């Protein structure tokens, strides 16, 4: 410790800017990791918190995916002797229309029986603050709100609140106010309670509930209760403790979480290079100091410990700063992530609070420290190996030995070979990741050699461009490959990441657009919510003839999409008239015969799978798909596999007749509407709204709107991963600044001599700028090439592990073209401060022998 204070601290103080830049690398990586993870956790935590709070004393919940449960199920549940209380629930979210209040989670219950499960702690200490229970039940506009929400919006008993329902915007009357805390804190206090039968009507549930909450009789265990209910109800129902909903949501979040984690770790990896680079440089610069220490009796262990200690402190400071920044970042990101999740998965979110997981935070802190120490390990080891005699001699620097270079090349070749072998070895997931890692390793091993060669290649052109500045710049690179190679490697890695992400984004976008073009071909869509993914509102079956009979309409396809549990994962069940769909949509067939799959699925004898589901679950033609349904379970063979991007966890298409029969649910989420030839979409929309819109809440979307929506959402999703790319570039730029600062302080004497013999300030400045530009250019060449490889692997990983969707390999030339000016610009910007420092340093001081 004393050595850290005596030896390291003065060095850090002297190179403050560089030290800050070095720790900034770790700080950014940790900030990103903490920010993204915390935001995701907060969304999940707030979801779970809401689930917990509104579950009350319920021990089990009976549901059937999005299909809901019929009313008679309630009686069957109540009849079970293991059940002490059973209360039906409808849960949905609505826009409050109050400025700044966002969404309200509406919990609809049967107030006459619900108190045995939930504690409605009404304001005023007693229930009579539901002004009049009979009025509450009698009037469908009755609403109970929380004290917090009431105070925020100046509402009292009797106030009116309006929100969108199936019947258009409707006014609700506040007939009760829940005391703060407990259930009232669910969904950030934006909780509304209404009568369940009124909710069936205003939210289009028909005679169904979303689920039934259950309290078990005394002495009945959760397991026994579950088993008893399973016996009483038969298959097709999910009987789970309330926490099961959190797990389902978590599995929806999983893909997003994976993407976020990978990129955060990648940027931490790049941060590691910055640390490595800084320490390698520091060891070179401090060789004399190390020599003195060794001469005075410092052991190798002491020298190594000194540098590792420095890196640990740097890591600690960096990760602490990163932690702070990450939490600040999470604050603004939580809402954004919540909204994105809501838009994509249709699960209402109101995450406001950032929730902290102390274990994760400590872990992130430790990760930062460990990463920093790992990065410093090699420099620390070479510091320990410094021979005191050589170190005490002035002016001799280590150069990269020819042998070392050769060894690296051999190792790189081995990595490439192994990587290729892994690739050929096939679909086994760890092998794919191993191949990826090996390839990255090969690129890193080759980076010093390649950057040296590229620097040599650059010498000619640069000298022709500016004879003095050019050769100064390039020679600096060639003479001290150690100084630049880590920076180049970091730059290369981050650019490769950008290209990889850009390519994935581009490929996803292209694939989705292709799918949108072929599949989303109806002229109009009628939905119950602005958000197509949300299934909080539904249309009754009785609306189908009303739509069909409009003169402008040639054909309409009612669609019901319901999330159901399939092999433990929440996949999307798409119920639609398969005959009509087969006729109208030219689907991209991956497996199977198009006529046959249309015929068999239309006849209700088979299902069609989305390609991603087939890939993820290894399902093929003829395989049986089993879906639990209230009727006891559906078992149908796969007649075809088609390309479909409607759901990330995969979709199962089946005929609407089968769905209605199996789930006893004839509601509709979405109408796909085909107009008669010659009818303008706007005219069709006018007719629908005039014909039906006055009675119902509905949104009639033009084909264009839906396309824009889907593609916009795709962009939004990809945008979240883009944040990491920005950070990666930032980290690489830090590396350039770092390297240049060192390069200039190393060559102070050289630059001083140059000025002493008549070099102009502009020439010195030019040399520094050219050096920066050369590093940028080398990094670009290597990074853009490495990106081509990284992209290939990323597509493989996504296809095999995450999305199950094959994406076309398209090199993102546009991204590459934008990166060139960005990186060169960033390199030049990074050179400004070091160049000025070089120009303004005192000549006498520079020439003085240290």
């Amino acid at each position, binding site marked *: 410790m004393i050595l850290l204070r005596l030896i390291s601290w003065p060095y850090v103080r002297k190179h403050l800017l560089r030290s800050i830049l070095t720790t900034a690398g770790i700080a950014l990586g940790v900030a990103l990791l903490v920010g993204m993870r915390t935001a995701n956790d907060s969304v999940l935590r707030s979801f779970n918190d809401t689930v917990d709070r509104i579950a009350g004393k319920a021990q089990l919940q009976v549901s059937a995916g999005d299909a809901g449960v019929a009313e008679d199920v309630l009686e069957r549940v109540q009849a079970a002797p293991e059940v002490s209380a059973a209360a039906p629930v409808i849960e949905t979210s609505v826009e409050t229309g109050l400025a700044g209040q966002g969404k309200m989670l509406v919990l609809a219950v049967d107030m006459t*029986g619900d108190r*045995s499960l939930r504690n409605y702690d009404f304001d005023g200490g007693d229930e009579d603050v539901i002004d009049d229970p009979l*009025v509450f039940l009698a009037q469908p506009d009755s609403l109970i709100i929380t004290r917090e929400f009431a105070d925020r919006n100046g509402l009292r008993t009797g106030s009116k609140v309006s929100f969108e329902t199936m019947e258009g915007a409707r006014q609700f009357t506040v007939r009760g106010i829940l005391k703060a805390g407990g259930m009232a804190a669910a969904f950030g206090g934006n909780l509304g309670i209404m009568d369940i039968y009124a909710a069936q*009507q205003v939210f289009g549930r028909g005679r169904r509930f979303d689920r039934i909450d259950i309290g078990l009789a005394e002495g009945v265990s959760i397991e026994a209760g579950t088993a008893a209910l399973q016996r009483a109800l038969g298959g097709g129902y999910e009987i789970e403790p309330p926490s099961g909903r959190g797990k389902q949501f978590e599995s929806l979040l999983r893909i997003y979480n994976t993407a976020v984690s990978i990129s955060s770790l990648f940027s931490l990896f790049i941060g590691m290079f910055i640390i490595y680079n800084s320490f390698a440089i520091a060891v070179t610069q401090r060789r004399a100091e190390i020599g003195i220490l060794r001469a005075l009796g410092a052991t190798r262990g002491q020298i190594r410990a000194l540098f590792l200690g420095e890196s640990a402190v740097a890591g600690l400071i960096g990760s602490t700063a990163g932690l702070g920044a990450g939490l600040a970042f999470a604050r603004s990101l939580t809402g954004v992530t919540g909204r994105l999740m809501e838009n994509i998965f249709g699960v209402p979110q109101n995450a406001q609070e950032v929730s902290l997981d102390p274990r994760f935070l400590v872990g992130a802190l430790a990760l930062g420290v460990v990463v920093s120490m790992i990065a410093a390990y090699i420099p620390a080891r070479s510091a320990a190996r410094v021979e005191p005699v050589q170190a005490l001699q002035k002016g001799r620097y280590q150069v990269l030995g020819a042998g070392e270079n050769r060894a690296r090349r051999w190792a790189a070749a081995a990595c490439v070979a192994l990587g290729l072998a892994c690739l050929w070895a096939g679909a086994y997931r760890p092998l794919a990741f191993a191949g990826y890692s090996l390839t990255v390793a090969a690129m890193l091993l080759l980076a010093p050699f390649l950057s040296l060669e590229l620097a040599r290649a650059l010498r000619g052109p640069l000298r022709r461009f500016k004879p003095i500045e050019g050769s100064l710049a390039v020679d600096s690179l060639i003479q001290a490959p150690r100084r630049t190679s880590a920076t180049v490697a970091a730059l290369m890695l981050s650019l490769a990441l950008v290209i990889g992400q850009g390519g994935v984004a581009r490929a996803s976008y292209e694939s989705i657009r292709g799918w949108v073009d072929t599949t989303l071909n109806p002229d109009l869509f009628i939905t119950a919510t602005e958000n197509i993914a949300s299934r909080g509102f539904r249309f009754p079956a009785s609306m189908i003839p009303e739509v069909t009979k409009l003169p402008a309409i040639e054909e309409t396809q009612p669609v019901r999409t319901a999330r159901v549990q399939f092999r433990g994962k929440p996949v999307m069940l798409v119920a639609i008239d398969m005959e009509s769909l087969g006729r109208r949509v030219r689907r991209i067939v991956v497996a199977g015969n198009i006529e046959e799959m249309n015929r068999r699925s239309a006849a209700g004898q088979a299902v069609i799978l989305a390609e991603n589901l087939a890939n993820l679950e290894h399902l093929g033609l003829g395989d049986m798909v089993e879906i639990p349904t209230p009727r006891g379970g559906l078992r149908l063979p796969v007649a075809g596999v088609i390309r479909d991007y409607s759901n990330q966890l995969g979709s199962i298409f089946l005929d609407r007749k089968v769905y209605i029969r199996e789930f006893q649910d004839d509601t509709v989420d979405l109408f796909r509407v085909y107009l008669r030839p010659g009818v303008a979409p706007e005219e069709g929309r006018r007719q629908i709204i005039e014909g039906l819109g006055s009675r119902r809440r509905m949104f009639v979307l033009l084909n264009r709107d839906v396309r824009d929506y889907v593609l916009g959402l795709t962009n939004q999703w990809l945008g979240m991963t883009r944040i990491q790319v920005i950070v990666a570039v930032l980290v690489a730029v830090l590396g350039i600044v770092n390297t240049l600062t060192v390069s200039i302080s190393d060559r102070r004497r050289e630059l001083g001599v140059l000025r002493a013999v008549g070099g102009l300030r502009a020439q010195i400045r030019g040399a520094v700028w050219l050096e920066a530009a050369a590093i940028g250019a080398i990094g670009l060449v290597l990074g853009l090439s490495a990106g081509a490889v990284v992209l290939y692997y990323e597509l493989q990983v996504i296809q095999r592990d995450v999305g199950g969707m094959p994406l076309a390999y398209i090199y993102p030339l546009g991204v590459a073209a934008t990166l060139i000016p960005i990186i060169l610009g960033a390199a030049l910007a990074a050179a400004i401060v070091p160049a000025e420092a070089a120009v303004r340093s005192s000549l006498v001081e520079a020439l003085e022998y240290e």
Partner: protein
Amino acid sequence: MSERCIRRFGGALLLPLLIAPVLAQDARQIVEESQRRGRANSQRYEGSLEVTGANGKVSRKSWNYVRTGSYGNSKAIIRFTSPAEVKGVALLIVNHPDRASDQWMWTPAIGRDRRIALQDRSTRFFGTDFSFEDLEERDVDQYDYSMQGEEAVDGAPCWKIESRPRKGKTSQYTRSVVWIRKDNYVAARYENYIKDALARRLRQSRIENIQGIWTPRLLEMTDLRRNSRTALSFEKLEYNVPMNDNDFTVQALRREQ
């Protein structure tokens, strides 16, 4: 759970007792006789309700009531007539001798009927000071009775009888005291205790002889914990009116009257 809750609405509270010779001075026999005298095959009245909260706020409701069927097997319909917010809301109560009664509610504004799931008998009856238990018909066998002496209520001599729920029988009350008039066997007052504290007091007055059945036409329930009271009065009371069984179904509930 919801066994006999509403039954009492047309039961002991509303069916006062006939004058009869005092055959037995035994407490239990007096209570039994009091119940027996109140029985009728059917009943109809127009009720009005006035709830006065602790803060002095008064809310009023009125309804029509019809009941048919024998004791323990009766069916009743309550249909609210005012105020406007609850007009048309109807309750159907079907009692079964061997199991819990079934209850449905029709809410015209929502346009559908619903089963009422009552899971706690101590819950207040739709915002009044009566709990569902208070409206139940008391099964004589569920309590132990003891004579506490004689006391006059509003000048009328009464037997003062204490009842306690038998072991294994649940009630929100620890004990109750009823004052039964010696002249007509009508209960003039109830006092219900939770632990040692008086929780609710019911006064029955305006006792009139209607078609040979002595009937109190004003019931005043005071909840001493909440400091609020509910007054219930009956108009156009008739007994033994011919009724059609088909009018006591969920389908009939939907038909506006």
